[in-house]
């Protein structure tokens, strides 16, 4: 019995949740998973799941999986937000709110971690997968199996974070886990380890995706599509991929060093014994700042597509827009110190980084002007994606003003780590990243499913998000100026903060209403799909190549790889009334499905769990499993299959028939 227990490392019965809130969360998670298993079994869909989704290497399917997981994580992160607002609206004076200090601290740490890594990155990679191959006129990404592996690693990271809700605890050190607080001495539990390893695993997946999409765009554009003829969304993906490649190795190193401190007793960041906690702060933000631009640049790319399409006009200032993307990408690596002006680096250093930070506002502002002038003298159709965009313009600009303010170091001294800061970055991330990706999902949904989402519910959702956001975060700007620091689980009544926290709580409820409308929108649209199904390949009168395929898109994307001669290739094709190809079909070779990605990620998950709980046998098995999976995969001989030309012809003919039926 004793040796069995020691085999389990630090894991024992006490790892299960103690307090009601965590128990509730864990129970709903477990029940949700059980429900999924029951449904799959009842409808006898296991084989289908394995064949169509778990082993797929089709970027379109991988993209959908990313987005589904990301949206689920949005619900979890949102639940965290609701709990935080409830706590801060009620924990005043003698009352101590609904959560214990420790639970509250885990909740906000989980909130930030989940929103950035699993919602933001998930939605982003989802859109990369869905859209990039289509927009560059290609059939696939450069490395399909690597692509699948990236997704499953992301899922493994997500699984670890969620597992911490059921077994063990999560980090209580914030979404970036500064030492010495995150060192073993001050965080002796497994929380920080869960944080480290879920991010490490997901981060490797992200790095691989950065490489993958970079090579895809550089090497696989269709004939005639020079770089300066690509849709701007692809430019945003290209610049983002470069940023990922330079930034994510830094994260890998930083997480490793913290893990080495905690697991092997090293002294990189410990207080004492020659550790330097400031080094961690520098490293983590050298990754962290580019990361937020990684999240937002593709959202800018989405806006560029949406504004041009819905204004029925070509994007204004294409060259300038490309230049702005490149400028932002480069500058984003030169500003990281602005996250810790208050750490005492001295006036010269602070001022330098402050100036570099302000410079980024210039290309960002340029983009807003170019979008406005795309709309100018256009014919604007205010479908819901445009509502998201309009909300973005107003909110992002205001948030940007706050950002420029904080770029001046002495101003930052007064608002650093206050709710003013929290309001600023939520403004940028929500109105920039989230609005952008949600708009993108609405915009491109019909391409992959053959029917549009219910527009009325979509507009309600957008408005709720916009109004809810203003109510939820407007007060936070003021609270910051009132001296409210972030991450407080309690404050005295004399501060006079409670009213504003209550307003903020109402705001979050309205955002929640917006989320409810979106869920309703999905539900209603899918329920009514037979009536709404029109298979229209081009429901929004698009301009770029993805609209040149049938809806839903066949597995091979294009029966014949397109050849283009200018920007907005599809728009040009429509102007010249270029008919779709209906002869000369060829055999198409595509990569076969494989469980390699799933296996690698599964073993990585096991290894991560092993390290966290000091179950060394599991770590060894996991590590060997990853290695073996890679080696075995590399021995695979026949990794492609062929779709005969006749079948391609049949698929295309059927698609054409469906379109005219609608």
């Amino acid at each position, binding site marked *: 019995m004793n040796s069995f227990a020691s085999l389990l*490392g630090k894991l024992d019965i006490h790892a299960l949740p103690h307090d009601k809130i965590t128990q509730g969360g864990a129970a709903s998670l477990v029940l949700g998973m059980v429900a999924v298993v029951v449904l799959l079994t009842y409808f006898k869909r296991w084989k289908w799941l394995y064949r169509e989704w778990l082993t797929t290497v089709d970027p379109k399917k991988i993209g959908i999986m990313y987005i589904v997981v990301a949206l689920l994580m949005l619900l979890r992160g949102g639940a965290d937000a609701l709990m935080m607002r409830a706590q801060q609206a009620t924990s005043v004076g003698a009352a101590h709110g609904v959560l214990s200090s420790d639970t509250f601290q885990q909740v906000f740490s989980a909130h930030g971690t989940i929103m950035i890594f699993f919602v933001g990155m998930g939605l982003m990679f989802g859109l990369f997968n869905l859209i990039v191959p289509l927009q560059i006129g290609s059939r696939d990404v450069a490395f399909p199996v690597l692509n699948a592996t990236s997704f499953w690693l992301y899922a493994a990271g997500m699984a670890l974070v969620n597992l911490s809700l059921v077994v063990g605890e999560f980090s209580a050190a914030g979404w970036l886990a500064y030492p*010495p607080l995150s060192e073993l001495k001050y965080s002796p539990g497994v929380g920080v380890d869960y944080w480290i390893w879920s991010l490490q695993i997901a981060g490797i997946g992200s790095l691989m995706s950065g490489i993958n999409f970079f090579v895809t765009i550089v090497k696989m554009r269709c004939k005639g599509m020079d770089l300066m003829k690509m849709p701007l969304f692809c430019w945003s993906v290209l610049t983002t991929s470069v940023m990922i490649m330079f930034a994510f190795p830094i994260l890998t190193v930083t997480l490793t060093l913290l893990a080495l401190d905690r697991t092997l007793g090293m002294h990189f960041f410990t207080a004492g014994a020659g550790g330097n906690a400031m080094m961690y702060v520098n490293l983590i933000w050298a990754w962290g700042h580019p990361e937020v631009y990684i999240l937002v640049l593709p959202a800018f790319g989405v806006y560029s597509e949406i504004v041009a399409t819905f204004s029925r006009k070509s994007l204004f200032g294409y060259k300038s827009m490309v230049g702005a993307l490149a400028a932002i990408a480069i500058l984003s690596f030169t500003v990281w110190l602005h996250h810790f002006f*208050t750490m*005492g680096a001295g006036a010269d250093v602070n001022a330098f980084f402050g100036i570099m930070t302000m410079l980024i506002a210039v290309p960002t*502002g340029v983009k807003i002007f170019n979008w406005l002038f795309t709309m100018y003298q256009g014919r604007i159709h205010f479908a819901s994606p445009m509502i998201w965009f309009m909300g973005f313009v107003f909110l992002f600009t205001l948030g940007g003003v706050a950002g420029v303010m904080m770029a001046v170091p002495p101003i930052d*001294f*007064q608002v650093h780590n206050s709710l003013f800061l929290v309001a600023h970055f939520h403004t940028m991330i929500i109105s920039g990243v989230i609005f952008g990706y949600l708009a993108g999902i609405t915009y491109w949904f019909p391409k992959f499913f053959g029917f549009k989402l219910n527009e009325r519910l979509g507009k309600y959702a957008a408005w709720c998000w916009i109004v809810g956001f203003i109510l939820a975060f407007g007060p936070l700007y003021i609270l910051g100026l009132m001296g409210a620091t972030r991450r407080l689980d*309690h404050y*005295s009544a004399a501060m*006079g903060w409670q009213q504003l926290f209550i307003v903020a709580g109402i705001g979050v409820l309205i955002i929640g209403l917006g989320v409810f409308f979106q869920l309703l929108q999905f539900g209603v649209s899918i329920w009514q799909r037979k009536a709404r199904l029109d298979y229209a390949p081009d429901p929004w009168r698009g301009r770029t190549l993805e609209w040149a395929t049938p809806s839903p898109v066949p597995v091979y994307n294009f029966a014949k790889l397109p050849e283009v001669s200018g920007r907005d290739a599809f728009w040009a094709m429509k102007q010249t009334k270029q008919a779709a190809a209906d002869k000369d079909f060829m055999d198409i070779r595509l990569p076969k499905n494989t469980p390699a990605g799933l296996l690698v990620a599964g073993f990585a998950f096991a290894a991560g769990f092993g390290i966290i709980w000091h179950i060394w046998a599991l770590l060894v098995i996991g590590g060997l499993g990853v290695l073996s999976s890679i080696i075995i995969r590399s021995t695979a001989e026949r990794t492609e299959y062929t779709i005969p030309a006749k079948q391609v012809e049949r698929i295309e003919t059927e698609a054409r028939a469906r379109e005219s039926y609608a």
Partner: protein
Amino acid sequence: MAAALLATIIHYLFTANIPVLQPAGVIGQKEKHLMILAILLCLIVVLPVFTMTIFIAWKYRESNHKAKYNPEWDHSRLFETVWWAIPFIIIGILSVVAWRSSHDLDPFKALAAPGVKPLNIQVVSLDWKWLFIYPDQHVASVNRVEFPVNTPINFELTSDSVMNSFWVPALGGQIYTMPGMSTQLHLMSDRLGSYNGSSANISGNGFAGMTFTAVSATGENFGRWIKTAKNSSKSLDTVAYQALAEPSHDNQVSYYSSPQPGLFENVVMKYMMPEMSGSLPPSHMMDGMPGMAGM
């Protein structure tokens, strides 16, 4: 309705207690002026952007058939030059301001008040309270720092725990406190009053309770306060300090007489010492020694 909302907000801004906008210290004043300047400069861009957005969205909506439709017009050297250049110039101005003010308001820069001797206060952030040592007055206090008005204060700060941030928004900006390192902050209050202070960097379970009071008093009252502290029966020797350093939540204000000379310096230095030596006993948990069995 929007106007009513705006009016409510503005009214609120002027009546509520908003220390950053109603500073009681010379540094805070300058920081507030910087904020206003930055906002005004940004408005040069923001107001036209908002106006244009509303105008363009309204005029060029598809139901307005009278508006000109020019689908091919997609570039203009002139416009690009304007909207690259003007923000660049504004940022240029703000950069000069940032450079100058970063030096002028450097927390490490001592404040001058002619004829007034500065007050030295040493600050140690502990779990989860603030210790203030007055080396020249030979007293120490927990969670309350008092000083005479119009007197430059030289804060010297460190942490005997994790990173914290010392922040009294009514007086001016914050500075991090870090174990094994000492930082500085120079503030001066220009009106009497009692102000809230907190830690602005999460430091663990009891972090929210790490609030303290900063009191700007007349010279006389300050003298009286020092006397009260001196009369405390507790002296801050090594043993007493060790007891204080134990983790505790929501500490009440307390006073110590005769803090051990060099106490602050020892707290900083002990993190530089090899683990086995040092004049202070090691902190309550051994640093980074996980079980290695089974590895």
